[in-house]
């Protein structure tokens, strides 16, 4: 079965620290990849997505993610986090042509000021 794994369930950082959240998927063919963020009390929002082309994807709020096909990974990065980045982050994948995304369990990020 298709699956998406997020290795870090809880991450605690201080402001200005660098962030990397891991995401691995199990699809063998073409894949569409997404990162979503859910700020406290708010609904899920799309951070960035990858369909094809440049494997380094830039998203909103200084986030980026790199698609590494050989590693089946789509890790999310930010060079310097802010307190306002405290949120839950979800990785999702859909096989090419599929309408059905599979979500990871999510990573809870807490940034201390």
């Amino acid at each position, binding site marked *: 079965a298709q699956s998406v794994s*997020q290795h870090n*369930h809880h991450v605690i950082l201080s402001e200005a620290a660098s962030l990397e959240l891991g995401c691995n998927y199990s699809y063998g063919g073409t894949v*569409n990849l*997404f990162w*979503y963020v859910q700020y406290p009390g708010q*609904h*899920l*929002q*799309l951070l960035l*997505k990858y369909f094809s082309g440049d494997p380094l994807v830039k998203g909103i709020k200084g986030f980026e993610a790199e698609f590494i096909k050989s590693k089946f990974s789509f890790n999310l990065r930010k060079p310097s986090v802010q307190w306002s980045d405290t949120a839950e982050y*979800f990785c*999702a994948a*859909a096989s090419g*042509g*599929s*309408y*059905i*995304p*599979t*979500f*990871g*369990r*999510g990573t809870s990020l807490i940034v201390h000021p």
Partner: protein
Amino acid sequence: SQTIHQWPATLVQPVGSPLSLECTVEGTSNPNLYWYRQAAGRGLQLLFYSVGIGQISSEVPQNLSASRPQDRQFILSSKKLLLSDSGFYLCAWSARANGYTFGSGTRLTVV
């Protein structure tokens, strides 16, 4: 622009009572529609999806059902709620897998 509306935001229902959660999308036609349940530490679980009017696919067998009576309307229902149906329910739409836009969710508590 496209918008998605989901209501109610919170709901407290007794065990055994019926349920109806509604989701509507504006600004697009023939969207793919989804119902997810979000549980703490367990991510998002896909419950139902629909690629057209009257077309419903269920991902997880359970006490819930879904219907799509109109192109931009997706309804999550139950005839008799169980305690285990408590959770946070999210509706989402997409246009040919081009990213998924989520509603604001409904917090359901079954008592």
